């Protein structure tokens, strides 16, 4: 998928009334995805180092989930779509 350039001055979704609270992109543990593959996807999509990608993967594995990126709603939506395209189980939610 592609991301359309954001027009300057165009309001973001009106639901975004609290711009200070970023959206969190969460990857959930699942029994099928290979640990090595998850590391590879984190590196490929987010440019993380092997160490950071591995740390996040291990957190998903042991704790059931990990926050892998954050930002405005539009960025989180793109990140979730990219993760889904690679078969990872990802969701987004507003930072508590």
């Amino acid at each position, binding site marked *: *998928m*592609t991301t359309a350039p954001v027009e300057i001055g165009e309001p973001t*979704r009106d*639901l975004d009334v609290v711009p200070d609270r970023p959206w969190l992109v*969460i990857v959930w543990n699942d*029994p*099928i*995805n*290979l640990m*090595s*593959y998850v*590391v*590879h996807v984190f*590196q*490929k999509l987010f440019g993380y180092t*092997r160490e950071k990608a591995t740390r996040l993967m291990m957190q998903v594995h042991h704790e059931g989930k990990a926050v892998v990126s954050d930002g405005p*709603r539009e960025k989180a*939506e793109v990140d*979730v*779509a990219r993760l*889904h*395209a*690679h*078969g990872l*189980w*990802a*969701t*987004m*939610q*507003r930072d508590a």
Partner: protein
Amino acid sequence: MSPRVRRLPDQVEISLDVGEANLLGGLADELRPVLTGEAANTDLDPIRERLFPRAYSDPTEEDAEDEWQLAVHGDLVRERVEALDALTQAVVDADKRRSQRIVRLSLVDTERWLTALNDARLALGVRLGITEDLDYDAVPDAERHAYEIYGWLTYLQGELVETLLAGDD
């Protein structure tokens, strides 16, 4: 049951036997209509839900979820069908040496293979109800073949990922 994977300068080479090559082509053909929704069997719903999960965990974000699905679903399907097509095409184009099939993939196509193999494993894994403590010795006889395919796909995908990860170092 042991494809050999090796990294060439700008390619990845996979040696399959003819049965393995045919298996991959067949799996791609089975998965394609599941991705596109042409296979409308409700038994396939859990597979589609796993392949295309929700983005918003908050159920009050239903409008945003619908909007997001509308915006990205077509692209997600297209991208993943392209991955299956890349897998099928590479098998067709493979060098044929007796019963061996030598597949050479660009790094871009290697990524597509990873996607296709992963989607095939997700579909099969959901159907079989795979859990983290998967024990191949405890598999019922009727499903042994499907588990063997799952195990082989896992092995092949693992080899491909390791090859790419080693190349990144």
